[in-house]
């Protein structure tokens, strides 16, 4: 059984919602990324989404774009990201790590070479933002051959046919994008999210994480009422940026750790309130 499935099985039996932070690997430095990953786990993160920097991130808003640019300015490559995962695994063999990125850097490495290297590094799954289920079957096969999970996005505009097409190929969990827009955009409407999650769950058995637009403990708690996982990206990356710009990069792990602890408490209180469906 994969680490991701083990995680969600356990959380489901405990009636708890997963907390999934997203950070861009190498932002502001690869060393800090590793330290931050451990710190986030200590603060209550259940799974880590690690962004692979790409020069043209069309699905990302300005906050994550700038994180990508900071990482690229240091020459952080896909191989470097896998190197970070490998080092993370030296002391943590429990917490799943899902790589989130775009197709081109993977193809340049080679589909099979990537899947093998990712598996060997201890990565658990991949969400390749610009690969819909219709494209790149070779890559999908290569990733699955290594026993890695393939996570897909679902959008407010995904109709029944698309949800079913994604159900065919997705594993681990699916990631519901709660607002129309790019990462970090908009305000989410929990009732709208709930009705869409019902439509998704009617067609997909996997756990459903909700992301885009979760900025604080209050929104995290709201989403925890309806989702299997709360995914937080721009709110974390924005804090990293502010500290890096103030020349206080060394405080990043502590500040992000405190932020995640707040979210953890809010999510757990919601779960304990018995509102999780």
């Amino acid at each position: 059984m994969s680490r991701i499935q083990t995680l969600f099985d356990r959380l489901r039996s405990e009636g708890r919602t997963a907390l999934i932070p997203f950070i861009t690997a190498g932002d502001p430095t690869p060393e800090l990324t590793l330290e931050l990953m451990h710190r986030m786990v200590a603060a209550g993160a259940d799974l880590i989404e690690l962004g692979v920097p790409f020069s043209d991130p069309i699905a990302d808003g300005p906050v994550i774009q700038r994180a990508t640019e900071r990482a690229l300015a240091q020459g952080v490559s896909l191989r470097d990201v896998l190197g970070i995962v490998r080092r993370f695994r030296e002391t943590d063999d429990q917490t799943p790590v899902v790589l989130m990125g775009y197709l081109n850097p993977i193809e340049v490495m080679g589909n099979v070479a990537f899947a093998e290297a990712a598996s060997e590094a201890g990565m658990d799954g991949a969400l390749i933002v610009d690969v819909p289920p219709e494209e790149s079957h070779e890559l999908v096969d290569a990733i699955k051959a290594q026993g890695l999970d393939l996570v897909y996005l679902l959008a407010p505009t995904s109709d029944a046919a698309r949800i079913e097409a994604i159900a065919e190929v997705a594993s681990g969990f699916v990631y519901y994008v709660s607002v129309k827009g790019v990462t970090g955009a908009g305000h989410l409407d929990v009732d709208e999210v709930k009705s869409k999650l019902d439509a998704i769950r009617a067609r997909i058995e996997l756990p459903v994480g909700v992301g885009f637009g979760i900025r604080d403990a209050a929104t995290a708690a709201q989403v925890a009422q309806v989702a299997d996982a709360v995914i937080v990206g721009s709110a974390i990356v924005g804090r990293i940026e502010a500290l890096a710009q103030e020349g206080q990069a060394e405080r990043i792990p502590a500040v992000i750790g405190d932020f995640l602890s707040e979210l953890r408490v809010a999510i757990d209180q919601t779960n304990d309130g018995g509102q999780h469906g």
Partner: protein
Amino acid sequence: MATRADDLGLGKPPMMAAEPYQWPDARGHFGPYGGMFVPETLMHPLTELRQAYERYLGDPDFLRELDADLRDYVGRPSPVYHAERWSRELGGAQLFLKREDLNHTGAHKVNNTIGQALLARRMGKTRIIAETGAGQHGVASATVAARLGLECVVYMGEVDVARQEANVYRMRLLGAEVVAVKSGTRTLKDALNEAMRDWVTNVDNTFYIIGTVAGPHPYPAMVRDFQSVIGREARGQMIEQSGRLPDVVMACVGGGSNAIGLFHPFIGDAEVAMIGVEAAGDGLDTGRHAAPLCAGTPGVLHGNRTYLMEDANGQIQETHSVSAGLDYPGVGPEHAWLKDTGRASYVAVTDDEALAAFHGLTRTEGIIPALETSHALAYAAKLAPTMRKDQSILINLSGRGDKDMQTVARMEGLQL
């Protein structure tokens, strides 16, 4: 670089001539190229667009409206002009120019923006967005938005905003909002990224007019179909004026919309060679160029698989060309396919060669071409002397050079 007619396979039947050409396939692939490599958030708007495009491109009412606009508003058909003096000077093949520079707004871009804006109106969209490099597509989009009373936002890299001031002013005069994009390399590719982000966010009322034959399906096919009016007209005009088809059709290639527009109606004519001319910038061996077909590798960018300029880690590289309109690290996927199948050939000329051709045509024919177009002219000037006087080259004169006065003057040390 091969310039002899033999090396380009002139007169030899191309590989694909025997089969009818029916690309793309149902999901937008041209062989291994093209496709829809986009986030899930874009799948629905793209599907909605594809359905509208398929419906209206077969709708006589829509086509009548489009034809009337192309005639009365754009000024079509544009003439084909036999550049006799220039041909004589080069001493070889006869050179013919398809005068897209005479269109309203001064370039071929408006053929596509008219088509897409009419489509937007049929789809009930009230806001259009566009990306632009040199500003020509932005101006053409702002123009049709003004005419149809649609709100218009144009994304333009900060670098391009600075070097194309006149076009920025034109767009603002036309009522468009010009947004300077500060991310990435702050040029055309980043403007395209930003426009896609806007579209994802505002899809309910917004139509995204892509200016070239790149992007996810259906854009490469749709833009080609709107631009193919160039080749359809030119094919008939060549037969009428010279009694036969040209031996070569030639156009500059950035994203590749003016080239596909000219080439597409000739694909089935096995005896017509097709040559696309990319921007070699400072030279292909310097790395400072914008020639993905000549010097790039296949990859995925902006929703499609095509030839790209990328580094060893798959990051997209900064491009260089004297012409902002060719300054793009990718190219339309249909060109990638035409290259691989051998149906079209792709070459590149440097900034200096393009500049020489810019002056050459201006002095011998009294036509000031755009710097983009000057790349095609430069290669025609190399090829023509290797051909016979009874042969002909048809060049797409894709735009006029008025917008480039500042750039050219600056390169020659003058301040206007």
